[in-house]
C-alpha cells in the first residue's frame, strides 16, 4: 500500500509539470549517438545502484578498482529488488539518477525507452567479448544501452541414479527422450517424472526454451508473433506433461528441492543457482547424485538467457568514470573474481576459460548452453506481455486450455498491449 502511494506521488508531480506542456506522441526513436570516453584513469565519485546480493557485495569488491584508480570513489547503494523498479522510474522522472545502475535484462527496453540511458561507447566496450545472447538484451532499436554484467540460463537438472535406472544414464538429449525418461522414472517409483512451472510469475522462462527449440519466434521487427504452429506444438508438448500426470500442477514454494533430494521428482528445468541450493539441501555426497544437461533438443536446443546489465544514465554526474568502472567490471579476470564472490555467471566469454569455471562439470554445461540462448525482445512492454503469458501458461497447465487457443490469446493480448514504440 505504502509503495503504491509513493509511486503515485512521484508520478503525480511529474504529471503536474508535464500536463501543461501539451501533446504529440512521436516515435521514441531518438537517434542516440554513442559518445567516446576520455582516456586515462577514472576520477571523482561514481555512484552505483545494485540490487539483491550484488548490491551487498559490490561495495567491498570495488575497493580494488579504487586502488587502481586512486582518484575515483565508488559509492554503492544496495537496493532491494522489490523496490528497484519504482526507484529507478522515480529517479529517471526526477532526473536524480545515479551514475551507474544494475538493470534487470527484462527492464532494459522500458528504461532505454525513456531516453534516460547513455548509449554504450563503442571505443571502450567491445561487443564481441560478450555472449551474443547477453549482448542482445542491451540492444533497443539497434542501439546498445549498457553492458551485460552477469548471465543465467536454464538447463535440465536430473537425478543420475533414477535416470540410469530409467535407461538414460547421461540424461535426455531431445524431446522424445525427455518424455520417455520422465515416464520411466515415474514407473520406477518417483512420484513425478519432472517438474515444469505450471504458470505463475516467470513461468515463461521455462516455456520459451521449448518454443525456441521448436523454431518459434515470439517477436519480429514489428511486434509480437506468438501465434505460430511452432509455438502451438511446443505448448502442446509442454501441456502433455501435465495431462499425462508426469508433472505436478501444484507444488508449494520450497517443496521442489526436498522432493528432488528424496527422489520424488526426477528432473526439473532451472538456472545455475540450483546447483548450490541442491548441494546445500542434499548434504554430503548429493553432488554425485544429480547432473545437468543442456535443454533437450527439438530443432535446436535453445535456452533462455537472463541476468543483469549495467547501464549509465544520461544525467550521470560522472559519465566517464561510470563507463570506466563498467569496463573494469567487464574484464575477464574481474568477472572470474566476481563469480567467486557472488556465484553470478560471467557474461564475458573469455572468463569461462578460467579453471574455476571450466573445471567444474556442471558449470561447463551452463557455459555450453550459453552458446545457444535467446533473450526475450527488448520491447518496452515485454514485462507486461510476459505477465499475460504466465496467466495463459497457468490455464494451459491447470485447466487444460487448448494450446492453439493459448497461443492465439497470448498473441491477442500482446497485440493489444503493443510494443510501446
Amino acid at each position, binding site marked *: *500500500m505504502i*509503495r*503504491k502511494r509513493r*509511486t*503515485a*506521488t512521484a*508520478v*503525480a*508531480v*511529474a*504529471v*503536474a*509539470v*508535464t*500536463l501543461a*506542456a*501539451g*501533446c*504529440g*506522441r*512521436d516515435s*521514441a526513436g531518438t537517434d542516440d549517438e554513442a559518445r567516446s570516453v576520455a582516456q586515462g584513469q577514472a576520477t571523482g565519485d561514481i555512484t552505483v545502484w545494485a540490487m539483491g546480493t550484488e548490491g551487498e557485495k559490490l561495495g567491498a569488491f570495488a575497493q580494488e578498482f579504487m586502488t587502481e584508480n586512486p582518484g575515483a570513489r565508488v559509492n554503492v547503494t544496495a537496493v532491494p529488488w522489490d523496490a528497484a*523498479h*519504482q526507484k529507478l*522510474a522515480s529517479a*529517471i*522522472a526526477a*532526473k536524480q539518477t545515479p551514475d551507474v545502475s544494475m538493470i534487470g535484462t527484462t527492464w532494459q527496453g*522500458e528504461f532505454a*525507452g*525513456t*531516453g*534516460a540511458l547513455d548509449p554504450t561507447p563503442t571505443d571502450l566496450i567491445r561487443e564481441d567479448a560478450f555472449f551474443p545472447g547477453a549482448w542482445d538484451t542491451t540492444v533497443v532499436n539497434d542501439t546498445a544501452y549498457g553492458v551485460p554484467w552477469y548471465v543465467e540460463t536454464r538447463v535440465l537438472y536430473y537425478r543420475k541414479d533414477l535416470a540410469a535406472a530409467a535407461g538414460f544414464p547421461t540424461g535426455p538429449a531431445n524431446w522424445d527422450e525427455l518424455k520417455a525418461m520422465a515416464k520411466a522414472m515415474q514407473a520406477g517409483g518417483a512420484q513425478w517424472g519432472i517438474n515444469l512451472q505450471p*504458470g*505463475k*510469475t516467470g513461468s515463461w522462462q521455462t516455456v520459451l526454451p521449448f518454443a525456441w527449440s521448436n523454431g518459434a519466434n515470439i517477436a519480429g521487427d514489428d511486434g509480437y508473433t506468438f501465434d505460430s504452429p511452432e509455438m502451438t506444438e511446443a505448448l502442446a508438448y509442454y501441456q502433455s506433461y501435465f495431462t499425462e500426470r508426469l508433472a505436478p*500442477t*501444484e507444488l*508449494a*514454494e520450497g*517443496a521442489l528441492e526436498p522432493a528432488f533430494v528424496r527422489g520424488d521428482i526426477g528432473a526439473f528445468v532451472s538456472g545455475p543457482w540450483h546447483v548450490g541450493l541442491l548441494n546445500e539441501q542434499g548434504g554430503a555426497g548429493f553432488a554425485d547424485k544429480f547432473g545437468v544437461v543442456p535443454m533437450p533438443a527439438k530443432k535446436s536446443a535453445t535456452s533462455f538467457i537472463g541476468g543483469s546489465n549495467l547501464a549509465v544514465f544520461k544525467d550521470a554526474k560522472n559519465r566517464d568514470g561510470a563507463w570506466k568502472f563498467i569496463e573494469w567490471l567487464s574484464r575477464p579476470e574481474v568477472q572470474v573474481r566476481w563469480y567467486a564472490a557472488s556465484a553470478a555467471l560471467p557474461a564475458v566469454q573469455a572468463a569461462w576459460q578460467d579453471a574455476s569455471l571450466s573445471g567444474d562439470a556442471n558449470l561447463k554445461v551452463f557455459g555450453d548452453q550459453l552458446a545457444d540462448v535467446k533473450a526475450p525482445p527488448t520491447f*518496452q*512492454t515485454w*514485462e*507486461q506481455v510476459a*505477465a499475460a503469458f504466465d*496467466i495463459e501458461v*497457468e*490455464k494451459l497447465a*491447470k*485447466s487444460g486450455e487448448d494450446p492453439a487457443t493459448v497461443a492465439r490469446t497470448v498473441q491477442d493480448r500482446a497485440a493489444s498491449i503493443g510494443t*510501446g514504440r
Partner: protein
Amino acid sequence: MSGPTTTVVDAKPAAPPRKVGDRPAKRASKWRRAVTGWAFATPFTALFLVFMALPVVASLAMSVTDLRSTDLRNPLAVNFVGLDNYTRLFGDELFVRSAANTLVFVVVGVPLTMVLALAAASALNSGLIRFRALFRVGFYLPVVTSIVAIAVVWRFLLDPEAGLVNNLLRLVGVDGPAWLGNTDTALPSLIVMAAWRNFGFLMVIFLAGLQGIPQHLYEAATLDGAGRWQQFRNVTVPLLRPTLLFGAVVTGIGFLQVFEEPFVMTQGGPLSSTLSVSYHIYNQFGFGNYGYAAAASYVLFVAIVALSVLQFRLLGERD
C-alpha cells in the same frame, strides 16, 4: 515552530482590553484571531496540499492521459485521451476479474469480520470468559503482527502436504485440497485469513461501544422477561448501531482495497482467482501504465464512496 507563530501568540496578551461596542478593536481582534488560526494551521495545510491534495488532483489529471513510464523524461509525448482509460478498463478481462474477486471479498469478508468481532466483543463483555485480558490481547495480536509473519504461518497451516489444516482433516478421513493452489478454495482461504487478521481491531471498538450501553437497560429488559438473545437483539444491536455503522464502513473500505493478502499469499493466482483491484492497479503501475492505473484507482475510489453511502443508508440513523 516557525517565527511568526510565536510572535502572534505572544502578542495576544498585550492587546488592549476589549471594550463593548468598540468596533475597530473588535475587527482587529477578529483579524488577529484569524491570523493566529492560520499560522497554526499553515504547516499542516502546506504539507497536506503538497503531499496529499496535489497528488490526488494530479492523478486525476493523469487518468485522462496515456502517460507511460517511458514518457517520464519526454513530457511532450503524453496525450490527452479523455475517458479512454476508463472505457478500456471495462474491456480488460483482468480488471473485470479483479473487480468480481474484490466484490466477493467485500460481500463475504465484511459480514464475516463484523460477526467475528461482535461475537468476540460480546463474549469478552459478558464476563462469560475467564482470562479476559489474555483473550483481548490474543484477538488483537493479528492486527499488530506483520503481514509477512502472518503469511508464513498461514502458508504453513494451509500447505497441502505438511499443513496443519490438512493433517487435522486427514485424522477424520478427509483429503483436504491444496487450499491456496485451487481456484475454488484460494479466495475463501484468503477471506478467512483477512477476517481473522482484521476482526481484532473492530472487536476493540465494539467492546468500547458495548461498555457504553447503560446497565439499567438490561436490568429493565430482564424485568420485562427478555432472554439473552432478545436482550441482544432489542437492546444491544440498536444502541450499538453507530458503532456498527463505523465498523461496516471501515471494514468495507479495507476489503475494497484488499492488497496484502493476495500479494503475500498467492500473487493473485491460481488463474487470477485472488487478483484484487488494488493488486491489479499495483501491477499496472509496475508495468509503467501510469495513466491506466490512475484511472483504475479512481474507479476504486468511486466504488468506495458508493459502498460507504450505501452503508450509511442501510445502517445509519433513520429518524
